[in-house]
């Protein structure tokens, strides 16, 4: 097959196009934060029920939430605890809420991943994810330094593989993002693995690829430069990401024997969705895990403006 048609069966759709078709959801969930792109989309989404989740990482207090209607305020915990509490708080019932849409714009990557695994596990194999871009991708807005912060690299719950003690061919596929410190943490956590860099190219804007190369170079002492371990993938299309990830692993396997595999999606949130798709559809039960460097807290939001909103129809 020249192109992975199976991975590309579904495609992202603009929210406006979706709404124009007169379709709507039974339940819409969004993680609250300060950014315009989260707040302005919420009331516009056609849904019978709408629910805000207030996730602990942003550190909102009651006074910040006074204007929200019936928010589900979530306590600190692992991604499994937080997301399950969220679904319970929204009284999500798979039998009545058949059409579910979750805005991932304000969620953390491990949250997004766990939600996908959990929904699949309880038999919800079809749902939609929504993501809204900022008005303009400027490399500045994406700049975030986590230097010196406490970081712990963990396996994302629901994405824990059955690993092998033979580590001689371990592979770490990193979705290269802007935060080179996170990349450094992931590489250090799997020091024995050979690293495949999955670059976001085409990048969200033309100059971001060069910036990310420059940042990546700062951790270059951490990585080996075995030729051919650089692969490319879309920055904002999870279905293309899933296809590229599959192909990246295939290419790596043709070069050298692979034992354990680790995926670490450190670029965009749509990329995390793509990693999740590929894992849940094709890697479950193998010696593969998704790992992620966790931080205790996050900015409430750095981007400005509201760009296009995308719906990702998920079929697991």
């Amino acid at each position, binding site marked *: 097959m020249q192109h992975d048609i199976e991975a590309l069966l579904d495609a992202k759709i603009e929210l406006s196009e979706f709404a124009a078709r007169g379709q709507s959801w039974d339940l819409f969930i969004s993680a609250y934060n300060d950014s315009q792109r989260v707040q302005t989309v919420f009331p516009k989404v056609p849904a019978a029920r709408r629910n805000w989740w207030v996730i602990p990482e942003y550190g909102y207090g009651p006074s910040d939430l006074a204007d929200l209607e019936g928010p589900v305020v979530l306590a600190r*915990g*692992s991604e*499994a*605890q937080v997301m*399950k509490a969220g679904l319970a708080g929204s009284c999500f019932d798979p039998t009545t809420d058949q059409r579910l849409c979750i805005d991932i714009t304000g969620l953390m990557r491990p949250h997004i991943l766990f939600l996908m*695994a*959990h929904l699949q*596990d309880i038999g919800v194999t079809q749902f939609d994810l929504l993501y809204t871009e900022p008005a303009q991708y400027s490399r500045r807005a994406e700049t975030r330094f986590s*230097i*010196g*912060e*406490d*970081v*712990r*690299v*963990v*396996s994302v*719950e*629901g*994405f*824990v*593989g*059955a*690993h*092998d*003690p*033979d*580590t*001689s061919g*371990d592979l770490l596929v990193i979705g290269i993002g802007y935060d*080179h*410190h996170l990349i*450094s*943490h992931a590489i*250090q*956590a*799997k*020091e*024995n*693995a*050979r690293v495949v860099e999955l670059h976001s190219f085409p990048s969200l804007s033309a100059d971001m690829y060069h910036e990310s190369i420059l940042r990546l170079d*700062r*951790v*270059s*002492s*951490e990585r*080996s*430069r*075995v030729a051919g371990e650089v692969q490319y993938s879309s920055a904002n299309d999870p279905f293309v990401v899933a296809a590229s990830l599959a192909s990246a692993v295939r290419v790596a396997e043709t070069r050298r024997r692979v034992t*354990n595999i680790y995926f670490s999606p450190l670029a965009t949130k749509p990329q995390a969705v793509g990693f999740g798709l590929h894992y849940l559809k094709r890697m479950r*039960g193998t010696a593969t*895990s998704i790992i992620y460097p966790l931080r205790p807290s996050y900015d409430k939001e750095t981007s400005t403006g509201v760009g296009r909103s995308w719906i990702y129809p998920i079929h697991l």
Partner: protein
Amino acid sequence: MSRSSQENPFDLNKASDFTDQEIAEQWVDLANSAGGLVDILNPKSRMPMLLLGGKGSGKTHLMRYCSAPVQAARYSGDVAQAAIADGYLGIYIPLDALNTDKFAREEPVEDHWSLVFAHYFELWLATALLATIRDCARSQSLVFSEPEFVGAVVELFDIEPAVALSSLDELLDHFTRTRKNIDSVVNNSRLRGERPLFDITFSAGRLAFGMPELVSRHAPDLRDVLFVYLIDEVENLTADQQRFLNSLIRYRRGSATIRVGGRLYGMKTLETTGSGEPIRLGAEFERVVLDEILREQPEQYDGLVRRLVAKRLERVGYATAALSSIDPYFEEVDNRDYWRSVDRHLPKPKENQLAPYHRKLATDLKSNLDLDDLTITTIIDALQVPNHRFLEKAAAFQYRKSWPANLDGAASLAIEVGNQARALDQGDRDAGSDLANLISHFSSDILAQLFHDYARRLPYAGFATMVELSQGITRNLLVNLKHIFRRSRFAGEEPFISGVISIKSQSDGVRDGASWFWEDAQPPSGGLQVRDAVESIAVLFRTVRLSHSPSECALCAFSVPLDALSENSRRTLSVAENWSYLVKLQEGRRNKNSKRIDALYQLGPMLAPRWEVSEHRRGTIELQQDLANAILDPAHRAELPNLMRKRLARLIAPSDSGLPTNPRLI
């Protein structure tokens, strides 16, 4: 192997970049007289050992060198013969692959997770061991009673496998199935929030220590072979998980033993499971710090890294450079005739304009001693050393250190100091002996000030400097060399082919290396606090170095009264040491005012270029309790400005007039 000379010989700097074969081929060791690196690990000893060291100190390399696949590579692929000849068989087990966080996502864990971990961990060790035994059994030269061995291993289980097992392959499959079942239970438990449920099929220690005994019985040729679990990256385990490992160390028996590799403070506890009683140093385990050993034997280390560099050069095809001495490829700052050569690294002096150090001196003379312009001109004139800026700067430095008490002394001091400098310029060491003496102490600081005066970066050059900067950690050296090579080639030089690697390329490269070390070798926790502290210390050293009158030459270390510090401060020090931001010096330092021995720390030489402080182990400054806490403990940080101002007042201003009116330095 010959490769394109486009390749950077130092690109690969981690053990994981190399195959087993390459580890065997690229191995370099200490000169035999001191006993090689393998003797440090001492794999033939039954006594368990903690092999600790900074990141990149070569622990993994050493452990892998002693592991079965690399042993086999040294004996034409025959692992059984390798084991018999070496007297041991290394089972290398890096803990990062265990993904231990899946058993302990949040601490403290519920008891059942500790049990799950312990069972899984031993199964993991047993699988690795069994895979190695299978490789041995395949050796043509070995008599191995396979069915009997397998039957005996099955006996070790409390719950027998459902299917009959008769071969090593079947046994290994059984181990794998059992382990994968646990993996699946664990993943589902994480997904669904259920308790993980599965059968515990053997008791702790039965497989890990039982199987080696059975090997001796069923493969007589291997009866004298010691099975060594080389458990690497112990910092991946939580304290609770380490307790189980410690229990294995305590209860080890027969022909199996354990080596544990990790960061300096990778061991979070020495306690065991159950009673909790800690394992005892000396009686139950030994402890070795690899980079400390290498730092204590600088000649050995120097020889080691030279052989290492030669191997790397040879590998990518720089055959000539690999065979010859490496030093001539690195341009050095020529220190002959009192660094006369530095002139060409500085901007050209401008006609009718004072040198920056003279300009600043003139300002200070005016504001401090209230001298008139004519006198000041006389003084500056007296301090001139035409065409020798290092000596001219040294004279200004000497003048500041001696600083005239009053107007009368000002001119005569200048004449005296200036005469000395000009005498040295003429080669007359007797007439310039006082200044020569000062230079012998402070030359590196004078140089640093001189470059700073001209807003130029301080050069770091010469292979010996590179070795010194690496602080006993081979990867540090390789990282610096990698950056130097890249800078050099970009600058249009031909490193290791023709000519030299310029001072600029070397200095740029070590700065790149320092940035990496500072920005990307990040502790997973407590990083911010440690970085603030280390930065304060570095900037303090730099401030002293560039001050009006440095109290210490080549300052790079500080002593602190460890016992008097806050808990937080001590933790900062240990995290900083763990990540090699600070190097603890063994000798300690006797406190001037009491009989107490203070702890002595050197700023990691890798970081020295970042703040242009000294990389040599020379000057030491004492940090008293209050100042040390203010630097090291965020709870005391608010006191830092005042304490620092007090500490530095005498150094940065030309007189004792208290706080500097203008705190900017020379």
